[in-house]
């Protein structure tokens, strides 16, 4: 089921609109990178998609079971182990109480293996590195078993080596699980690296102003990828310059 945004708008109180007339359609299984400068309402848009916030105008069509969400910092619960965090997500996702404790433990083990953290399940969040925490957070988001996965700059606070690795990791997991992913970032290279499609959001108010497809050619040819990155960066800067006066 696709995600459809029609003339979506959001303002807080009487202030200027944060989002205005946002239109987009995201197909099932698609990986969309949502790109924009700071203050363009990317996070607000994600919160609306996740149901944490309500739009003030326009229509929104999301899968009825809601969306899984991954935050910029891992937001793991410090009183639980890595495994405990995932098991809690499984427990909260299970509305009818059908799954047994043992089956949840087994599923948590599978998810930890999926993010290559099979050996770190009993560690607590503060004992893990930033990259490991984000992988646990990813496993927790996958534990919700929802088609739509929203990611709010999940790798922004990581060092470059770890981030590169997590890009590969996320791509692998996306292929394995076939989720629909909306990935918010302010990093053009990251958007081109990960997305099948890059949507550029303008700032104040946020609106989808441009869109690029990232084709197979861009993936295999570093020159073409660089070209696309350059084009998108120029368009982004143009958008930012508009606010100079």
């Amino acid at each position: 089921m696709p995600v459809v945004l029609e003339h979506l708008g959001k303002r807080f109180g009487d202030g200027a609109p944060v989002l205005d007339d946002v239109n987009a359609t995201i197909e099932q299984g698609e990986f969309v990178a949502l790109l924009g400068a700071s203050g363009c309402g990317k996070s607000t848009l994600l919160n609306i998609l996740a149901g944490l916030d309500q739009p003030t105008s326009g229509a929104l069509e999301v899968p009825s079971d809601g969306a899984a969400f991954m935050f910029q910092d891992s937001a793991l619960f410090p009183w639980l182990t890595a495994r405990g965090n995932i098991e809690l997500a499984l427990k909260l996702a299970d509305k009818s109480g059908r799954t047994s404790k043992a089956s949840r433990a087994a599923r948590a083990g599978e998810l930890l293996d999926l993010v290559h953290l099979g050996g770190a399940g009993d560690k607590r969040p503060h004992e893990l590195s930033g990259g490991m925490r984000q992988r646990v957070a990813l496993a927790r988001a996958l534990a919700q078993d929802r088609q739509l996965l929203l990611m709010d700059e999940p790798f922004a606070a990581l060092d470059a080596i770890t981030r590169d690795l997590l890009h590969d990791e996320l791509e692998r997991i996306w292929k394995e699980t076939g989720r629909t992913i909306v990935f918010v970032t302010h990093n053009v290279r990251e958007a081109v690296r990960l997305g099948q499609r890059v949507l550029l959001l303008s700032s104040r108010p946020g609106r989808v102003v441009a869109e690029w497809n990232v084709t197979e050619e861009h993936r295999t040819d570093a020159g073409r990828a660089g070209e696309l990155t350059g084009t998108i960066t120029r368009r982004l800067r143009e958008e930012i310059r508009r606010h100079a006066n």
Partner: protein
Amino acid sequence: MPIEQETRLVAGETAENAAEAATEAAPQSRHITSPSLKGNPDELRDLEAGLDKLQSDAHRKARIDWTRIILPIAALLVLILAWQFYVSLGFKRRDQVPGPLDVLGQFGALWAEGKAQEAVWTSLQRGVIGFLISVAVATPLGLLLAQVQPLRRAFGPLISGLQVLPSVAWVPAAIIWFGLSDGTVYFVVLMGAIPSIINGLISGVDQIPPQYRSVGKVLGASRIQMALQIVLPAALPGYLGGLKQGWAFSWRSLMAAEIIAVGGTIGFGLGSLLDQGRTLSDMATVMSAILAILFVGILIELLVFAPIERRLLLRRGLLAGSTR
């Protein structure tokens, strides 16, 4: 997917592995990325394992830190020596300011009579029972107040006020209602402990990072699940602070009640011993009782609350760099 196949073979993979991975990736093959690591799960796994090792702390083994034991004992010795020194200067009459040895002797005499044990046991029992009842009453109330805004706004100021009201103020009322019975003692203890536990829990809840609630909501927690699975554990450090304070209030209120309400069916507690010393003008007994009250308090802190708190903070990685 010729390019991917090639890199696999160059990397020296077995043909079987490569075939397996290729069929895995085949259905979504429209997304082929930079050639560096693509489609080689084992290499990715190793890389990550290496990075994880480099980035996470090696586990440090805890050893017994003797300064934790020696320093408090040394401090106690210094205080006792200072006390003895002051007494030996002879500014005051010995029966008004007894020395450490006089007090120890008197305590020994009380112990031989069985009075000391009786007093400590009676008071400790009441303190612990009163405290446990307070916890059972205050925890649900605190959670309710913290989670339901209108209730919080309505009763919050009252609860804070009750915490400021000295629980001794309840003693006369309690004596009129319950007479000289255990009911009086427990009533005063509850009025002292319950507000401070509620306040501790509420302030613990207030300090929860808002993100935890967002995560809970995204994960689909119901109201009850949110309260029990996320808010309560997240507020645990503050709640524990409230419990510590609640115990302190129980113990203090208990002493106040025991000193004021003597006789009837009220048993013989440490406060009663203190009051008896006062009526007999027996300073050594008074000092023995005061020190016993103090030491019970310290023991409970050291044996019950300190280990729980330490463990709680350690597990959350909150003790690094503290002076504990």
